[in-house]
């Protein structure tokens, strides 16, 4: 019988050499006349150990990492297929403490299964949620999602069940389910990992949403920067059609659900839901004025669900295991688990799915191991380029929507970017304004003009021109953008600036 070896095909793993490692393993096995079953799984999310190679053994899966292609002959020589000892051996994958401490619900199959195989997906519990949903009425499905306490994981944290209920109540013949896969925040990659490592869970989640509200067409709006996810989704959608999980007769239910991927084109603003809808319609991604809400008048003027990838992929688990099981995780109004992404200057970077409630300190030090550079952490930015910078004084804060809001921060899409003490916070503030200027859709004045003026004012402060007056002007400008912008881009781009001014004022001295 052939031995099964797993080498991730995940873009992040490939970026550090997983493709070369897989080729070297295949070549070495052939040279030695060993029959191997090489599976290209997703990533387990322990990127600090990538490329992470796993061997299926009687004791379960055993891991080696980080493996370079040049290590492969020595691994074979050490008989790694029979778990011989080698310095890169990490033991059984499930006993690696970094992974063992996690609570993986949404990510339960990522890194485990072959993302191109419907059969493997079903074998690991896939499509149980849809099966359950097909026995329920639309209102009952929506009720389950509401009872789970699931809130939008894209950043806005709006209760998913309420959004679905609004779409369900519309009597229009045509409705849509759209997935916002425009994961543009720096420090985030959970959507990408899911789409590459377990794409059927997204397909299943969207199908359940369609069945619930009576929508027959779904669109995944995927950013163009994710070619690997694009390929994985196209493969999975074709396989789902082949297996009759998509199309005119979903799982033999007589219900129709069609699904298509549409590519974005490098505009950060298209992660804002109304801008995304404009873009899906083939237009400039300019933000729409709300109301009307997309749930009432969305894509092509029809009632539309707009949810993030993590939100939709959490739905199959909720349906399969029950709303209560999901709601039992978490704290306060933040129910369930959150896939947190540890990124930037951190030693053990990667994806950490845990129930809400862990403190930043636990995440950054106990799990993340401090900075990669070995220097002290000076600041973390949570929730992408529009998120506040948080100083170490607030590291006892729990990762929870309300607790973070209480210290002037926001959770967003769950990305945490770590900076060591070499960071120049005035430059980071300038970058936030510059990014907003580059990415503004141009529809409203506070964002379009304010961001450009913001860069200029910061430049004047740093040039020593009328420092105090210009700091006051910058604070006023931030306030205007927050209060007067049409959407979150102009409305939140000041958060990193304001937090840098508040916590790291010493960096805003004139420099000559």
């Amino acid at each position: 019988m052939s031995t099964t070896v797993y080498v991730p095909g995940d873009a992040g793993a490939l970026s550090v050499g997983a493709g070369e490692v897989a080729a070297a393993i295949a070549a070495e096995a052939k040279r030695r006349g060993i029959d191997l079953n090489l599976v290209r799984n997703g990533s387990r999310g322990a990127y600090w150990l990538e490329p992470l190679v796993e061997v299926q053994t009687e004791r379960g899966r055993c891991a080696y990492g980080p493996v370079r292609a040049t290590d492969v002959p020595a691994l074979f020589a050490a008989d790694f297929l029979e778990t011989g000892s080698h310095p890169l051996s990490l033991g059984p994958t499930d006993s690696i403490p970094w992974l063992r401490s996690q609570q993986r619900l949404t990510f339960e199959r990522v890194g485990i299964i072959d993302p191109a195989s419907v059969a493997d997906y079903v074998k690991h519990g896939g499509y149980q949620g849809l099966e359950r949903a097909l026995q329920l009425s639309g209102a009952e499905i929506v009720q389950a999602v509401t009872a789970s306490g699931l809130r939008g994981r894209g950043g806005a944290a709006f209760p998913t069940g309420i959004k679905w209920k609004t779409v369900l109540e519309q009597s229009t013949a045509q409705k849509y389910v759209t997935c916002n896969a425009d994961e543009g925040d720096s420090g985030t990659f959970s959507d990408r990992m899911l789409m590459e490592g377990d794409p059927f869970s997204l397909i299943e989640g969207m199908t359940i949403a369609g069945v619930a509200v009576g929508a027959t067409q779904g669109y995944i709006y995927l950013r163009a920067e994710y070619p690997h996810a694009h390929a994985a989704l196209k493969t999975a959608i074709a396989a789902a059609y082949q297996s009759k999980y998509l199309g005119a007769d979903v799982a033999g239910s007589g219900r129709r659900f069609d699904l298509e991927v549409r590519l974005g084109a490098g505009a950060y603003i298209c992660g804002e839901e109304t801008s995304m809808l404009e873009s899906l319609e083939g237009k400039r991604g300019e933000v729409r004025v709300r109301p009307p809400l997309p749930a009432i008048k969305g894509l092509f003027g029809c009632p539309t669900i707009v949810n993030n990838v993590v939100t939709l992929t959490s739905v199959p688990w909720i349906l399969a295991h029950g709303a209560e099981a999901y709601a039992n995780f978490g704290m306060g109004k933040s129910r369930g688990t959150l896939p947190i992404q540890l990124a930037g200057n951190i030693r053990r970077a990667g994806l950490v799915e845990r129930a809400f409630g862990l403190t930043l300190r636990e995440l950054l030090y106990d799990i993340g191991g401090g900075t990669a550079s070995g220097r002290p952490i000076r600041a973390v930015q949570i929730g992408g380029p529009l998120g506040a910078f948080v100083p170490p004084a607030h590291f006892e804060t729990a990762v929870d929507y309300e607790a973070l809001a209480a210290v002037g921060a926001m959770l967003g899409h769950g990305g945490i970017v770590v900076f060591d003490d070499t960071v120049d916070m005035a430059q980071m503030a300038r970058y936030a304004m510059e990014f907003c200027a580059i990415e503004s859709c141009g529809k409203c004045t506070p964002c379009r003009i304010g961001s450009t003026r913001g860069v200029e004012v910061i430049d004047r402060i740093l040039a020593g021109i009328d420092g105090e007056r210009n700091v006051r002007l910058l604070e006023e400008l931030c306030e205007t953008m927050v209060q007067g912008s049409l959407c979150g881009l102009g409305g939140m781009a000041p958060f990193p600036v304001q937090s840098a001014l508040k916590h790291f004022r010493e960096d805003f001295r004139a420099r000559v």
Partner: protein
Amino acid sequence: MESLPSEQSAAVRRIVAQHRERPGPLLEVLHAIQTSFGYVPEGAVPVVAEELNLSRAEVHGVVTFYHFFRHTRPGAHTVSLCQAESCQSMGAKALAEHARKRLGIEFHQTTADGRYSLEPIYCLGNCACSPAAMIDGRLYGRVTPEAFDALIAQRSPAA
């Protein structure tokens, strides 16, 4: 504005024909044109507008809204360096400076020999392996200046 040679404008018409029946087809059409031509030539705009029954202003507005659509022919290799916060925390600015010197061009420029185009990009979703780069659709992580030079050397004609 230069109009497209007739065989190229026929190619654009064929691309539009493949997507015309899909709802909201313009972005799909522009992607297909860029895949085929390497960029969206200015002369393609009136052809697409006519075929989709849109104004030239509408098509031009969409082409110029999105950073991903190029207006000039790219070099043989497109090198995109992530400039977002996570990569900045791991030395992306120094890497960009190194790349500018190594290639002798600024962002948004193409080398005189037409081999390399250098582009900034805002997040490749590889933030756990910062700094990140993408060359011709291949993703690279933990890119040091030395690793960058090796990636360029692999793509340079033998000296």
